[in-house]
């Protein structure tokens, strides 16, 4: 790749080569927002807080998308439980991994929440996620992937975004956009902020179809301890616990779903819709998870337990604004 002047571009030829892909590794940014009317879910990082931290550490500040004008995070690799082994080829770059993960560079353990300089030939191995379900790997200047409707997020089901619209496979080459952009950030350190450390109940606002359930049913939903089943992926989490019976039946005329919509299908076991969900669904929704608790939900995995707590929308809005203030403080507190 070269410019019209014949001078190689700064990032030309710098890429990670995938030696082992990990369990489910995809490129994700903050998501393809506002496309539900096309049947397209938002996709994007399940733990948006950790994505933002990984980008901040390598100096990737959100920039307005050229199509939508909305600020968009750089895409980073979302790693699920077992991570990839990558080898850098063709030049230098800076990377940061956020989340609670065992990370090795050339076989030696390195810290997460720290911007690390890598040289050509270095091997970066995110061996496993230690707590929570996911880790994020950002690279200074970003990965080279063509945005679709304002986002590089991968939606495997539709073959959209990321690298060929799918999860990483061994032998893939992941080109970098502008690795020189991150070099100055090497050594930058951030506080280890892990959403999975929060143990309070997951907060929801009841509705939009909570009226389809008896008072006792809603009480059971809010008091039971629920366990994330093995059916848990980017599309949604099925929960185990007491059965919830809908008084008004388990089919409704299809209605919109959001990330965090809690549907109750015919078997009475809740499904929490996640980022790769359908855009509509035909089961009654007893509640919707608040924005501030979505990142924490994104770090949950099969076997994890949770309870729900109902709050009012205005309270949820206050919590979300508080979350954003905390994130700005985090960015201000990054140390080199």
């Amino acid at each position, binding site marked *: 790749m070269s410019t019209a002047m014949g001078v190689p571009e700064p990032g030309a030829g710098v890429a990670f080569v995938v030696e082992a892909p990990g369990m489910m590794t995809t490129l994700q940014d903050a998501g393809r927002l506002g496309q539900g009317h096309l049947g*397209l879910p938002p996709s994007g990082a399940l733990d948006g807080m950790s994505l933002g931290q990984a980008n901040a550490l390598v100096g990737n500040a959100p920039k307005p998308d050229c199509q939508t004008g909305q600020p968009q995070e750089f895409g980073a690799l979302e790693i699920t439980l077992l991570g990839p082994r990558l080898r850098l080829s063709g030049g230098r770059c800076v990377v940061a991994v956020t989340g609670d993960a065992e990370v090795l560079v050339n076989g030696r353990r390195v810290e997460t929440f720290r911007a690390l300089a890598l040289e050509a030939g270095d091997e970066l191995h995110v061996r496993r996620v230690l707590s929570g379900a996911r880790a994020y790997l950002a690279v200074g200047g970003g990965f080279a992937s063509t945005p679709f409707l304002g986002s590089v997020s991968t939606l495997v089901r539709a073959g*959209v975004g990321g690298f060929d619209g799918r999860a990483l496979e061994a032998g893939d080459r992941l080109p970098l956009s502008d690795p020189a952009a991150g070099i100055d950030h090497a050594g930058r350190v951030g506080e280890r902020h892990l959403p999975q450390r929060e143990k309070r109940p997951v907060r929801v606002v009841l*509705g939009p179809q909570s009226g389809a359930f008896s008072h006792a049913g809603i009480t059971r939903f809010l008091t039971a301890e629920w366990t994330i089943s093995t059916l848990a992926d980017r599309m949604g989490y099925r929960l185990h616990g007491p059965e919830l019976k809908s008084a008004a039946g388990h089919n409704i*005329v299809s209605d919109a779903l959001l990330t965090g919509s809690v549907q109750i299908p015919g078997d009475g076991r809740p499904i929490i819709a996640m980022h790769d969900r*359908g855009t509509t669904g035909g089961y009654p929704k007893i509640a919707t998870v608040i*924005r*501030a608790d979505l990142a924490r939900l994104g770090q949950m995995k099969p076997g994890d337990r949770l309870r729900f707590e109902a709050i009012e*929308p205005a309270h949820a*809005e206050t919590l*979300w604004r508080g979350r954003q203030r905390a994130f700005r403080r985090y960015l201000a507190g990054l140390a080199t």
Partner: protein
Amino acid sequence: MMTPTYHIVPLADQGVLIDCGETIDIEVNRWIEAAALAVRAAGIAGVIGIVPTYRSLAIEYDSATITQRELTARLDALLAALSVGQRRSRRWRIPVVYGGEFGIDFDDFRRRHELSRDELIARHTAPDYRVFMIGFMPGFAYLGGLDPRLHTPRRDSPRTRTPAGSISVGGQQTAFASVEAPSGWHLLGRTPVRNFAVGRTPPILIEAGDCVRFDAIDGARFETLQQDRDWLPDWEWIESGEANP
């Protein structure tokens, strides 16, 4: 037209739902369509997305820019002034191969309803279907106006994969799928039309409020159209009142 009874209910702090309740009704759906256009045209700062369905309109917002209280007040004012007029929409001609490997439930389906092959095709291709909503999967079109004789409960056990382009029937509805998806509906046929394509601008062709008419074709024609990368289905403008599902 009459304004349907609606409620604006919270979707946590992520959105609000303008909900007309449990109904599949063309007048309600036209009101939803008009409301979606009006909300989009209003360009309310902080609104992230608008998802129209059969019977409701979800409006996603960011509370950093607008509170739910402010948004709800804006929507109430907008909806009070809403008028549903005639609107031009598109009528698409969608070619379909019925039966055989293209529609594996076709023969069971026609036997169940005691129809010959030709009778079933005639009944399924007769109506102008209204696209009640795009949802579930990218480009998946839910069509209203199915011949009551063809109403059929969904299959007991859903299939985990059905092919892209599937034309199916579930309950009172027929639908056409754009990407491979799980489905509990009866598969009658397949179209070479892909309503969702990543490389195309815009990525979907047929939108909520449009009209769809199916034309029966044979397998050879299907293969020809499928291989022609530049081929797109025909369409024409119609007044929204003309479609008669």
